[in-house]
């Protein structure tokens, strides 16, 4: 059934990294099935209406007396059973769709049996995602930004909070969305079924750069996920080259450290994305740019030109400072 959805869409290239048609998560697949059911029922209703409409347009209407409005109410009578049948049909259709909805909803709420459960906490900020992987052992808590890695087949329960305005967390390939509302905690569950890379995007208008608040989702095998987790727990390596050392000195003592944290260095501010493993991410600035050297230069040199209105100020680095900072950041894998 899940495969039927792409067949309904005549456009090519529909199965992309940010699309509902993927059905790559358990809830996402249930959505696709339900969508197909709804699409069929609603298309049947549409066909009935259009058939009636076209038939009454092209009917050869019998010539009647030229007096309009004559005997109208008597002429209504034969249509009465048809109207009742139509209402009954609509009501039955709605009942069917409501039942399908209820069953799907119940299936989505029920968690697939698994002996492991991931606990992730996402805090939304104006225009970036603060991610924490919780653990019963505090020294195994991972903090990252604008990306999540998920092991395939393992449910991840995600607690959602916001530090400022209302945002919405949405990975279309995997599941429906859930708002992050300041002052409230909401949560959602992702159960990825297929290995792959996906893109998530904020789905509640949150201000100037709402359009550039994406999140990279990587679904991988349990082994790969654990390897990633181990890497994430490793603090940043010491700089190996003089250029990187100059960059390290800049980042940990100048403006950057007032907002950003890098594990294993004195920089430990919490109000901006964690940079410890910046260079291992697929994108910069919450999906605004792909992670390449050129884009990294552009971002650090002028964050406001790249993403106007965002909360990272233009620092005005000298060229040698810029080179050293980039050199250091590129070591943060």
């Amino acid at each position, binding site marked *: 059934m899940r495969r039927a959805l792409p067949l309904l869409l005549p456009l090519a290239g529909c199965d992309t990294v*940010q699309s509902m048609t993927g059905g790559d998560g358990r809830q996402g697949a249930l959505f696709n099935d339900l969508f197909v059911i709804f699409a069929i029922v609603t298309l049947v209703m549409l066909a009935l209406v259009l058939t009636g409409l076209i038939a009454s347009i092209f009917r050869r209407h019998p010539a009647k007396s030229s007096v309009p409005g004559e005997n109208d109410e008597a002429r209504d009578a034969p*249509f009465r059973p048809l109207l009742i049948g139509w209402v009954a049909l*609509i009501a039955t259709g709605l009942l069917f769709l409501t039942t399908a909805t209820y069953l799907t909803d119940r299936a989505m709420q029920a968690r697939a049996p698994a002996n492991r459960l991931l606990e992730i906490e996402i805090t939304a900020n104006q225009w970036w995602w603060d991610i924490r992987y919780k653990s019963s052992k505090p020294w195994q808590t991972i903090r990252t930004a604008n990306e999540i890695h998920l092991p395939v087949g393992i449910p991840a329960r995600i607690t959602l909070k916001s530090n400022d305005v209302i945002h919405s967390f*949405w990975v279309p390939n995997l599941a*429906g969305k859930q708002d992050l509302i300041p002052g409230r905690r909401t949560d959602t569950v992702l159960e990825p079924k297929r290995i792959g890379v996906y*893109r998530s995007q904020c789905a509640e*208008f949150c201000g100037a750069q709402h359009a550039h608040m994406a999140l990279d989702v990587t679904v991988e095998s349990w082994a790969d996920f654990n390897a990633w987790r181990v890497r994430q727990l490793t603090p940043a390596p010491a700089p190996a080259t003089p250029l990187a050392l100059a960059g390290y000195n800049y980042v940990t003592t100048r403006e950057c450290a007032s907002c950003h944290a890098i594990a294993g260095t004195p920089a430990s501010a919490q109000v901006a994305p964690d940079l410890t493993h910046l260079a291992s991410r697929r994108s910069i600035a919450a999906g605004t740019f792909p992670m390449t050297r050129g884009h990294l230069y552009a971002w650090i040199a002028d964050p406001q030109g790249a993403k106007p209105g965002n909360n990272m100020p233009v620092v005005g680095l000298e060229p040698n400072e810029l080179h050293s900072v980039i050199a250091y950041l590129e070591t943060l894998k």
Partner: protein
Amino acid sequence: MSVMSGKELPRDGRDLEGTELHERLEKTWGTPPGLWAWISTVDHKRISKRYIVTALIFMLLGGILSLVMRVQLATPESGLITPDRYNQLFTMHGTTMMFLFAVPVMEAMAVFLVPLMIGTRAISFPRLNAFSYWIYLAGGVLLWVAFILNIGPDAGWFAYVPLSGPEYSPGKRTDIWAQMVTFTEVAALAVSVELVATILKQRAPGMTLSRMPLFVWVSLVTSFMVIFSMPSVALTSGFLLSDRLVGTQFFNPYEHGDALLWQHLFWFFGHPEVYIIFLPGVGFVSHIVETFCRRSVLFYPAMVLAVVSIGLLAFGLWVHHMFATGLPRLGYAFYTAASMAVAIPSGVQVFCWIATMWDGRPRFDTPLLYVVGFIFTFVIGGLTGVMLASVPLDLQLHDTYFVVAHFHYVLIGGAVFPLLGAFTYWFPKFTGRMMSERMGKWTFWTLFLGFQLAFAPMHWSGILGMPRRVYTYPAGLGLEQTNMLSTVGAFAFAAGLFMFLENAAVSLRRRANAGSNPWDASGLEWAVSSPPASYNFAHIPVVSSRTPLWDNRDHLPVMTGLRVDDRELLITTVMEAKPDLREPSPVPTAWPLIAAIATTAMFIASIFTPWAVVVGAVPTAAALIAWFWPKGPETPEPVIQ
């Protein structure tokens, strides 16, 4: 002072007829040329035309904004519009279309047509009608001047907190938005009060509730919906203004406030609002179907019941805008069921219209073409609405371009197409001229096909993961093709709108010789000249069926006895429409304009200081008192001993 008996004063009747009656009535009721008369008129027909022209200007302005947005979105990562400007664009587009075009134009059509359809000479509270237009105009001008000065609102037409609150929307932008809401809501409430009183108390003798034209029923239901829903948005925009200006904490979660309070209060208004826009369209469709199929719409009682149940149901659906906010799932189930249930009365109406076309003798002139376009488009929109009503589906589709497609299908299909059909149909009644039928057909097809091209691809854009309210999108997600199609379609649709306006403009220059009933329709509005005289009816008609002009082809039964030298109309009883009182109707006056100026000054100043409410109340109260202060009686009335 001696008491003069009613019989000695000049009244219409057998003794006073024809041209002499017309001249005397015109002298009493007419609006002479000149600026003063234009400012002080209380004629519902003139005021409604003002409303319509103003609303169409706002529609064009809002439409131009949408074309700019479409150019921006035609290509990925387009640098044409900055994010700040884009956020103003989509906020202004939605706000203009919802508050400054859709509701006012529908109310204006009712203000013109309802008194004529029920056989009365004026609307119930003519000065309030005049006041409401000035207030509406002030609100619209406030918003657009702010936009042109680059301080237009930018938090969306729905202005969710905390984004629209004092911390995240500094400056006056959102205050201007919130106060514009106050202006337009006062105007809409005023018109609704007038319509309720007019419909319940001024119907022609014999026009019982079960003989009221369907558009009059729709206007009654819609007016009640406005009365019960608009105060919610007035209150909540007031709360927002006070959070921003005087430091209340309604929406501040860190001081025991709640961001969701805004959403509940706003959508309690917001959902009925879209039905307030849609139902008048339904009324237009019923009238057009009747006239062009040469028979009344099937099952009048079912049609009335459908309209009433839509009006009631509309108040029980608002949480379907909040399915992603994490409220209890069991509560959501109720809103899913209610949201789907509204398909039943809508389905009844679609059945009755199509059955009328089947059983009647349809003539597919332009107005009926718009009805066909409406059925096709609105039903599609309604069906995507059924999808969105389902919580699991909505959690994927919410806040994507799928929803943008849905609501444009139901609003343009369900309200704008019928409105354009209604403009074409009643154009002779408003202006005395017919619109060009040939041009009308070309216009319809351009609009219809352009609309489908613009909005159908948006369903796919949403499914492919494009969220709403984004000023751009990345390449490589498959969104380029759908967005380009939408942009092309938007321009085609805009071309259609220009064709419509050009048709209207050209037709206005022809001779006014349409005749009183060019379509051979059945309603009382077609029993007066085109355009109607200032006094509407020379004699108050009497009805005994739902289709008075079809059942009284040889002569029209009328009652006589209303004054000719003074403005007077007939009050009848609510249920049976039996003649009850002769009610004096107000003469032209500038006080509504003066009161509107005082109110406007108070509302605008209160954006800058709360003391404006206290200080501004004084001139506003003074103007209102002067407005209601009785003038001396022009003709003798009995004296109390």
